[in-house]
């Protein structure tokens, strides 16, 4: 009898303790958004990750948040509050982030740039019916999501844009160098298909391991295939080693990559290996100029003075500017429903240091990408020099749009 009493006591004490812990843990939920409180915008970013850090995007969004609150007096008198979560590129952490962000009751997400959005997070955001304004889509799930309103093409446009540029200067044989995983392999394959459809004669895919300690064998393989140009899918973390390996292996043809590794740390520590490399940019202050650039530089210099101005900060600024225009366009209460409705109405947008967003520009396979255009610039003596295409071949005309003398390239044809 004594024995049973002890068991019962232990069981009751455990249950009591657990209940108390549960109530303590769950009691501190987020305060629900009200019409007079701040307008909450969520932002899911991969930051603490060796290969892709979006710390610049966070800093940019926060700089614009301060600008909107201090210089514009908020939106409709309400302050804007950006809540960021770093998923570290990990799917479990992404799920945790998504739930914590949704618990803040955001009216929209802004500038999401994450390795796991497409993997685990997007289904949750879609279920919650919250729009994403401005973003850096990297997966097919994002490219076709009806609640996503990116101002640029993200990863889906940067590589195809390079292919179109290379074809426009007469390159026939290209080497495609990508990481050895499913998602990167899919990008490489789609590029090979695009190359063929653009009339290119040959494309060869080369893959490298995520943690490969040496890129020399890869570079040697690329050199042996004697390509006329290279499209390299590399992040800022790998870029120096890959470019050095190309140089050591004697790959002396045009090497192209995206804006991701176009940052000071890579360019300065590459030992000259980055000289002459072509980068695709979704956003181009040097090409566009004008009032947009003045505002961009003002916001960044005032509210994020320590930040280097990069492709990331430029693209994130365009995302914030788009979010601002959508939120300002909302009539009545700013709620997730009204923001989504306004975003659906605002699919045509003039752009902010970017090519305009045009609803009829989206391709069939990537309906969310309303601005698939990129510019290309070559890194020469410490500067990015925009490329010029003297004469666009007839077959490529649908893929090139020259605005104010600057060619913008797209790798897809509009659905219409």
């Amino acid at each position, binding site marked *: 009898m004594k024995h049973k009493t002890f068991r019962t006591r232990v*069981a009751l004490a455990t249950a009591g303790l657990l209940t108390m812990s549960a109530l303590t843990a769950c009691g501190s939920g987020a305060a629900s958004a009200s019409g007079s409180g701040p307008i909450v915008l969520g932002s899911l970013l991969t930051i*603490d990750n060796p290969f892709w850090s979006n710390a610049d995007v966070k800093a940019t969004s926060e700089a614009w948040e301060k600008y909107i609150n201090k210089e514009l007096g908020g939106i409709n008198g309400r302050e804007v509050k950006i809540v960021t979560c770093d998923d570290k590129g990990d799917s479990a952490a992404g799920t945790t982030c998504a739930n*914590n962000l949704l618990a803040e009751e955001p009216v929209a997400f802004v500038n999401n740039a994450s390795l796991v959005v497409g993997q685990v997070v997007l289904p949750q955001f879609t279920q919650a019916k919250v729009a994403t304004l401005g973003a850096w889509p990297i997966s097919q799930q994002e490219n076709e999501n009806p609640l996503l309103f990116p101002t640029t093409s993200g990863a889906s446009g940067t590589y195809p844009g390079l292919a179109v540029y290379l074809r426009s200067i007469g390159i026939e044989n290209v080497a495609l160098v990508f990481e050895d995983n499913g998602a990167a392999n899919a990008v490489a394959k789609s590029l090979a298909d695009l190359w063929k459809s653009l009339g290119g004669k040959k494309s060869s895919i080369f893959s490298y391991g995520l943690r490969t300690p040496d890129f020399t064998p890869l570079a040697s393989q690329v050199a042996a295939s004697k390509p006329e140009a290279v499209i390299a899918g590399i992040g800022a973390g790998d870029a*120096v080693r890959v470019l050095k390996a190309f140089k050591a292996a004697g790959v002396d043809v045009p090497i192209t990559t995206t804006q991701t590794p176009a940052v000071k740390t890579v360019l300065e520590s590459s030992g000259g290996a980055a000289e002459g490399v072509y980068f695709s940019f979704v956003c181009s202050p040097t090409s566009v100029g004008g009032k947009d650039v003045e505002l961009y530089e003002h916001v960044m210099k005032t509210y994020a003075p320590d930040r280097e101005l990069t492709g990331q900060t430029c693209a994130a600024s365009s995302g914030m500017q788009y979010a601002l225009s959508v939120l300002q366009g909302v009539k009545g209460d700013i709620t997730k429903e009204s923001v989504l409705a306004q975003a659906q109405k605002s699919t045509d947008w003039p752009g902010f240091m970017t090519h305009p967003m045009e609803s009829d520009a989206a391709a069939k396979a990537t309906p969310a990408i309303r601005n698939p255009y990129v510019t290309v610039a070559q890194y020469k003596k410490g500067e990015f020099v925009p490329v010029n295409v003297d004469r666009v071949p007839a077959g490529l005309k649908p893929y090139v749009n020259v605005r104010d003398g600057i060619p913008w390239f797209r790798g897809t044809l509009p659905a219409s």
Partner: protein
Amino acid sequence: MDLLRMAVLGLGLGGAYALLALGVVAIYRGTGVPNFAQGAVGMFSAYVFFGLRDDGGVPAGLAVVITVVTASLAGVAFYLLVMRQLRNAPILARITATLGLLLVLRGLAMALFDVASRTPRGELPSRVLQLGSVALPVDRLLIACLAVLLGIVLSVVSVRTRLGLAVRAVADNEKGVQLVGLSPQLLGALTWAIGFALAAVAGIVLSPISGLDADALTMLIVPVFGAALLARFNSFMLAVAGGLGIGIAQSTLALVQDHQGWYSILWAGIGRSQAFPALVVILLIVASGRLLPARGDAATGRLPVAPLPRYRKSGPVIALAVGLLLIYTSSTPWLSAGIMTLCGILIGLSVVVVTGYLGQISLAQCATAGIGGLVTARLAAGLPLPLVMLIAAAVAGVIGIILGLPSVRVRGQSLALVTLSAAYICEQVVFQDPRFTDAEYGYPLIPAAALFGRQLDMTSFAVLVLVVVIAVGSLVGALRASSLGRRALAIRENEAAAIAAGTNVPRYKLAGFALASAIAGLAGCLLGYHALVFAPNGFTTFASLNIVVMAYIGGIAMIGGAIFAGIGAAGGLFAQLLAVNGWASYHDLIGGLGLLIAIQLHPNGIASLGHDLRHRLRSRTGNSKVPPSAPAEHSTDVATDSEIERLVR
């Protein structure tokens, strides 16, 4: 000619593996522990060196000396504070301790340094040497030469000097060494100091070509262990040859990468060249049986206690009541973390079955969970939830049998390496290849769970997962109490005795792997339904290691251990607690430190505290049926010993 070119270029890759393998062999020869943290020590040392040189302005030569000396002292400290205390512990405890060190170093690097991968300026000349048609950077050649040189020096020291012979002697017979007047502590400390110093040298010379970040060298453990295995963890020169060989083979494999056709599925396609070293490990161990020499096994060590679960009837009822209360009072983020925890508990239960009860070290339980997730992604659109759960568990169970086949020939650390390699192959090949995932672009989506025609919201789904976990937990508890469980423990304790008692050991091992993998597969299926997508990076080798570590802290042979593993699982309640308090970046650091402390204070796991407490309380009340969980050496617990005796009789 192409073959020769790629073989020569593989020298850099091979040199990297060889350098790290030398340290692994040095530590194994001296203490019998495969150091999973060898790459992490190299990584952390590299951060120290480049921090001193680039940020501190210390001359490179002096920075090298400081870094190597610091690493050696860290090796001594780790040995004296952790490994020395575990010298009589089972091999799993010692492996787990090195995993704890890995977590601590990775967590520290992420907390202290910029995590973005960078390429520091190297000290070795980087000009290119033209060898016929091959352009080989000189630093790669020098790294390979350095590995060979160090291999020769270590070989000579180990064979020709009194010190080398003493280190070998202490590994073989510690008491004998003491009798001849040598200090095993001093020799053990020296072994770890040398191992860490070699890791530091590797980190300094490799980082400029492999990149510097928290994971760059840390995650090279599979190819490095492959090289060490080729040397039977014994010969320095063979380790160097093994490292260079694997590097060269991996490099030349690139020549056949683009071959198409069903016949090329083994070597052409996504992840094949990365998985190659893992395949080498599996083939080497399985082909040669018990390959690793038994070092440092003077005492066989006490295995973690596996007490009979108490509250087998009231426990599930209480768990259900508490679980329902939590589910219906939690906010969405905590509810989601709770579901991740419950799925983590399932994977933890699979570890309890295969490692805790059966004694077979499996580091691939998350990989089998991934198989369940993959099956779910392929079937969920067309089949009802219960059927998908059954099929996912069944397929994972079959994979478990395949995974368990090597356990018929090998066990202990050899089996740990085989399962680790299998997990690595799953991560690099199976979960990435569209031929398996059936998703050419993006990730395979999974529809929301529905039962009896009704779509489940998160709360209803949490209730379903809770019920599944309680059912499986009850099954595992009942298994421990059954004759099957007693036989499994007998196998864990002494295979020869179990065979003598008439137990069909291979059949039990395979059944254990099948059951454990089926449970893990079920977890993968539920994780898929929760995430609405098959997310391959939730089932990485690192996730598998993390679950085993957490289960060990909790008590690897107890249901409580599985609960602890679930709470500590990625995305679980512990992660959520850290996230809401802004400490998410310290997850690894806290987990690793917790492990190193817990393994000293409670080698049987934190869950054993309850047992001890209950025993003490009963002692006071004069009702002392249950033995304490820290019995004499060489026994699982008194109850288990008596059970084994009964079996043998």
